[in-house]
């Protein structure tokens, strides 16, 4: 049995939010992680207009950025978000297929820096852009210990 990739572990069903976001890893290429997102109606801001809330983008970006960090670590370690800055261009529509792309820019003093965006899968239109920073090696139990 092959050992699961750290990113697969990160997005496993044991990660509660992954189930709600409907995330699926598309590609891992040269520090860039691409993830498909099929979010449910539970993130609707307005059921009449069918507009999703911007919080969905923040949830996805934080989740996928964390996955991008995990995917580049030499060994499995817990991480924690330090900061997340997001610009919202357009809100996703109900049922709109999304792709989140995250690029690990580098690690300095155990802090990982990630940039990325959320886009429409159908058109490539950018919906949100973000930068994030993550502490590597928190006091949490290492990933994989209890999986």
């Amino acid at each position, binding site marked *: 049995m092959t050992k699961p990739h750290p990113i697969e572990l990160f997005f496993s069903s*044991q*990660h*509660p*939010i992954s*189930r*709600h976001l409907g995330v699926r890893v598309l590609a891992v290429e040269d520090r860039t992680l691409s993830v498909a997102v099929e979010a449910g*109606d*539970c*993130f*609707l*801001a*307005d*059921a009449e207009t069918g507009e*999703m*809330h*911007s*919080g*969905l983008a*923040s*949830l*996805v*970006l*934080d*989740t996928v950025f*964390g996955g991008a960090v995990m995917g580049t670590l030499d060994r499995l370690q*817990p991480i*924690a*978000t*330090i*900061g*997340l*800055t*997001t*610009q*919202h261009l357009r*809100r996703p529509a109900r049922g709109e297929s999304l792709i989140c792309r995250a690029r690990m820019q580098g690690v300095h003093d155990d802090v990982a820096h990630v940039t990325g965006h959320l886009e429409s899968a159908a058109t490539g239109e950018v919906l949100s852009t973000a930068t994030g920073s993550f502490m590597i090696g*928190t*006091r*949490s*139990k290492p*990933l994989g*210990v*209890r999986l």
Partner: protein
Amino acid sequence: MTSRATGRPAAGECDARLASPMARWLGFETTERADVFRMRFAPHHIGNPFIRALHGGAVAALIEFAAEYAVTAAAGRARLVSSAVDYIRVTRDADVLARVDTVRIGRRLAFVDVWCWQDGEDVPVARGSCSLRIL
């Protein structure tokens, strides 16, 4: 105060937000203080199952929702443009309270800071700085 976008009164806009699926997912509630809101804990808010810490995105979503709600109540209708969130302390599997401090509400734009805590208002777990477009 009414929304220029929908013509609905601010109170109606706020009611619609409180009844939205996103508000239910967050467990978003108003409190006796007009500037303070609650995210009632739910297991799907967990980001780290091993220490049962909240997901950073859930806290960011609370900050954004609270910012929009507060500015909508004051100015009619608002949509988030950007947010910058700092995660100050580790969270735990419990409710989060969020206080919205208005920096400026203009005719077209608003700027607010949001402070979040669990154990006490003087022990923040996160802060957010948000800019919003008034519609």
